């Protein structure tokens, strides 16, 4: 019973209290670069969930046989292998999305969330909790990606997933899309706002 509760924690904590992006500050690079539109943000989120879950399982299975000195190289190779698979799958089935994401799929390898979770969790836990941890952290990352992508696409181009959301009558009444939201620096401000909101709610996360 106690074990079950722990697994649930492992799965759901990263979504809010222990979010990899806004609390642990890992994997920021891609959050900023791919979120100008909602669709690539979702694709990226799903890719990271897949890579993180399976990398966690593989490393967790190998954890007793990896020599400590070369563990970073081993981890990188495992992750790189998985990322190549994801990259090829995207090129085959979602070519447009993979074009939009360009180098950022490759950069999943150096996404600090992966190294962080592999080091901190998979090296010391059994495969099943590691799998859940991978899913949880991947989802925590994807949630932030989707929130940022949602606001940037809605305010920046007035569309969601490519469909016009803000009605024509608004534009006729003088509403203008905020072009600044498309530019990368605004992603930082949106993330900062998420951090602000979240830390106002969870007071124990505040720094002094």
């Amino acid at each position, binding site marked *: 019973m106690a074990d079950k509760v722990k697994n649930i924690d492992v799965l759901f904590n990263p979504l809010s209290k222990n979010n990899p992006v806004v609390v642990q500050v890992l994997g920021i690079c891609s959050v900023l670069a791919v979120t100008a539109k909602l669709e690539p943000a979702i694709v990226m989120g799903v890719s990271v969930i897949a890579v993180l879950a399976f990398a966690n399982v593989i490393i967790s299975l190998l954890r007793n046989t990896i020599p400590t000195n070369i563990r970073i190289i081993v981890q990188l190779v495992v992750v790189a292998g998985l990322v190549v698979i994801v*990259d090829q799958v995207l090129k085959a089935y979602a070519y447009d999305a993979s074009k939009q994401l360009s180098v950022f799929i*490759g950069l999943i390898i150096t996404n600090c969330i992966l190294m962080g979770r592999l080091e901190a969790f998979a090296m010391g836990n059994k495969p099943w909790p590691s799998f859940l941890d991978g899913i949880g952290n991947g989802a925590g990352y994807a949630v932030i990606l989707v929130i940022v992508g949602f606001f940037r696409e809605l305010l920046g181009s007035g569309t969601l997933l490519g469909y016009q959301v803000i009605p024509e009558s608004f534009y006729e009444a003088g509403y203008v899309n905020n072009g600044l939201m498309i530019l990368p620096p605004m992603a*930082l401000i949106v993330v900062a706002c998420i951090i602000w909101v979240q830390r106002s709610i969870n007071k124990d996360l505040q720094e002094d």
Partner: protein
Amino acid sequence: MENFNIFIRSIFVDNMIFAYFLGMCSFIAVSKNVKTAFGLGIAVTFMLVVTLPVNYLLQTYVLSAGALQWLGPEFADVDLSFLSLIMFIAVIASMTQLVEMAVEKYSPALYSSLGIFLPLIAVNCAILGGSLFMQQRDFPSVWTAVCAGGGWGLGWLLAITAIAAIRERLAEYSNIPKPLRGVGITFILTALMGIAFMSFLGIKI
């Protein structure tokens, strides 16, 4: 001259932090004081200058389509580019290890001041990002790769040193809303500096 242009462009226009937002994780985590930030910047610059040409040579003579032609005509249509990610990251990881050992041997003082940051460089997105951009843009020669690497590295160094200096002052003198302290305000600062750096976008050299 061409290479010099690329060098300058890589520092300002294509700045790793403010234009591409690569290497943000260590950028946020290590920018609390100027000294360590500067050390990390130097290390990143060095790694970019070393790994970019190595990966360029790998790319042109081993990985890209038809690159293996020098082995003989029967290799002319071999395309290994799907391996490039794994090869690049392997080069970067082993280079990091090598540099770490070399620094430890010849300059223990620098080693102890850089300490934990050296191994972390292997997972700095700016380094792998540099190699991937190199692959995308088809640089004409190895010197271009060296110049671009140096430029990106210096740009990164510039960015992290500047932000560390601002954060040092900020921690002393300003009254920031509590939930924004630390990470939050750094994000906003970086965003503002990014907007400032966008003014370089129109510059043609």
